């Protein structure tokens, strides 16, 4: 059903504007004092769960990130510290930005068969869609580092190679997963 949106003419009182100004200022001042009270309370260590303002004082204060947020990639490790990746090229194929390039090599262990001799992700092209993580049948690539700042002065610096991608992964203990290395 359709509803007509209201459209009354302004009354004389509203045309005079004074009352409207007062109403508006009352609202914003209300916000000001409420937020101020929270700020002061926080200064004394109270009201920890409330926030005086929606802004974060980046970079001193960091916004809590959602667990599902896709951040910088990493390659997970095997128990011997080598990459878990078996160079199956699934991530390279699914990537809509064509920013992953892998060169496969033959692994001495016949159970592993293949491993990447080179694995480059050009983060300057990456669109952070997360398809590579979804497509990996080995849990070898992940986007759970929580790192959002990875800038560079050059385009070459945005290309992350095998070493850089492995650097954020810990070598797992038996029956555990390869966790993010906390700096």
């Amino acid at each position, binding site marked *: *059903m*359709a*509803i*007509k*949106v*209201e*459209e009354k003419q*302004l009354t004389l009182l*509203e*045309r005079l*504007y004074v009352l*409207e100004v007062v*109403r*508006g200022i009352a*609202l*914003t001042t209300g916000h000001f004092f409420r937020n101020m009270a929270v700020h002061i309370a926080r200064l004394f260590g109270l009201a920890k769960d409330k926030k005086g303002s*929606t802004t974060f004082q980046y970079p001193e204060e960091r916004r809590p*990130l*959602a*667990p*599902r*947020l*896709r951040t910088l990639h990493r390659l*997970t490790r*095997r128990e011997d510290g080598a990459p*878990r990746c078996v160079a*199956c090229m*699934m991530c390279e*194929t*699914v990537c*809509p*930005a064509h920013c992953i390039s892998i060169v496969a090599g033959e692994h001495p262990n016949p*159970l592993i068969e293949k491993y990447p001799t080179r694995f480059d992700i050009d983060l300057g092209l990456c*669109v*952070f*869609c*997360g*398809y590579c*993580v*979804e*497509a990996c*049948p*080995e*849990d070898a690539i*992940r*986007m*759970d580092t929580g790192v959002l700042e990875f800038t560079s002065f050059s385009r070459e610096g945005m290309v992350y190679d095998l070493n850089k991608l492995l650097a954020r992964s810990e070598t*797992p203990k038996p*029956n*555990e*997963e*390869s966790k993010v290395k906390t700096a």
Partner: protein
Amino acid sequence: MLLNMGPSHPAMHGVIRIKVIADGEMVKDCDIDIGFLHRGFEKHCETGTYTQCFPYTDRLNYVSPLINNFGFAMTVEKLMGLKVPERCEYIRVIMSELSRISDHLTCVGASAMELGAFTVFLYMIKAREWIWELVEEVTGARLTTSYARVGGVKGDLPSDFDGKCRSVLKQTAEVLDEIDTLVKRNRIFYDRLRDVGIVSKELAASYGMTGPFLRSTGVEYDVRKATPYHVYDRIDFDIPVGRRGDNYDRYLVRMEEMRQSIRIVEQALDQIPEGPTNVDAEGKIIPPNVMADLGKFGKTAGLLKNEVLIEPTLEGTQKRFHDRVRADSKEAWIPPKEQVYSNIEALMNHFKIIMLGHGVRPPKGEAYGAVEGGNGELGFYIVSDGTDRAWRVRCRPPCFPIMGGLHEILVGDQIADIIATFGSVNMIAGELDR
């Protein structure tokens, strides 16, 4: 006098150029120059697989990317004749409406700011922030969501979504009331918008304008009511219409639409079914690398009874949730990770879907699917030749017809009114120029 506004004018929302022939302060004639942000969306979609198109659709209307995602997914599903699980339909409705709220918040906030009401902008962006935090929790990104998949969505909603969403909606409704207090009966705001940028029914219809622009003239057209998709026919909501078709009516329509969207989300949250749970689990949760290794070395006995400790960004895609949010089809998208890790059939299926030339292959044919975007009817027309890439994709951006008729609307108003009218168009260059 010939006056150029844009392509990079501080009050222009995107890159666009308006050539104005002015007589004093009056606009005598004007011409609108678009295309500065053309990225070849349609051509790109033809070069990638269907799944690879979703990141492109994120970048159409980048204030409400989820609606674009779902619109594209819906059209491909139409081509394939896929039926999406009920829970997934509800998720799509909820996420679309949240996006619509964020879209309107941005539009009203930004256009109010251009008229000098900076507080309104800050309050609305604050509310948008809450919504985007919700979106981040569900999809894993604030803007470039890529959440839809052919035949479903990426993952189920997080377990605490219901409560969080309701509290965000409540706070947003409060913000909307505050905005009304600040500007609705404010004389400066009223006088700058009332009877400015008038669109007649005939003009709107002849250019094919849709959305709040058309509804402000009093025409009751909304894709959600006219051709209900997802589960909009099960939800009770109203379409706000204006009468005069001026900027003030458009402001009122947008504000009311946000309230209606809040209503829709609340109803959808009440109605959303749990869906099949798919548990044959022993309740053991094992890390993915361990599970994959066990599977590879053939120790598969009873392995499928366990759940995988999933990578955080894939939360909601486990076997437990898979049937709730993905269509039951091997043609659509990859099987749950537990199966990929532990049996060879699923692994082959997984590879098949991703391999070029295989994957999502709708039968030969063509389909048009339309959803109600933030600015109006957002349509996708896809021609398939039976391969894994679309033969032709055409997008009907809701801004385009509005921008086509804008020169007729601006003529006769003052130069300063261009800003107010242009703000009410809510032009999103990403969507307009594709």
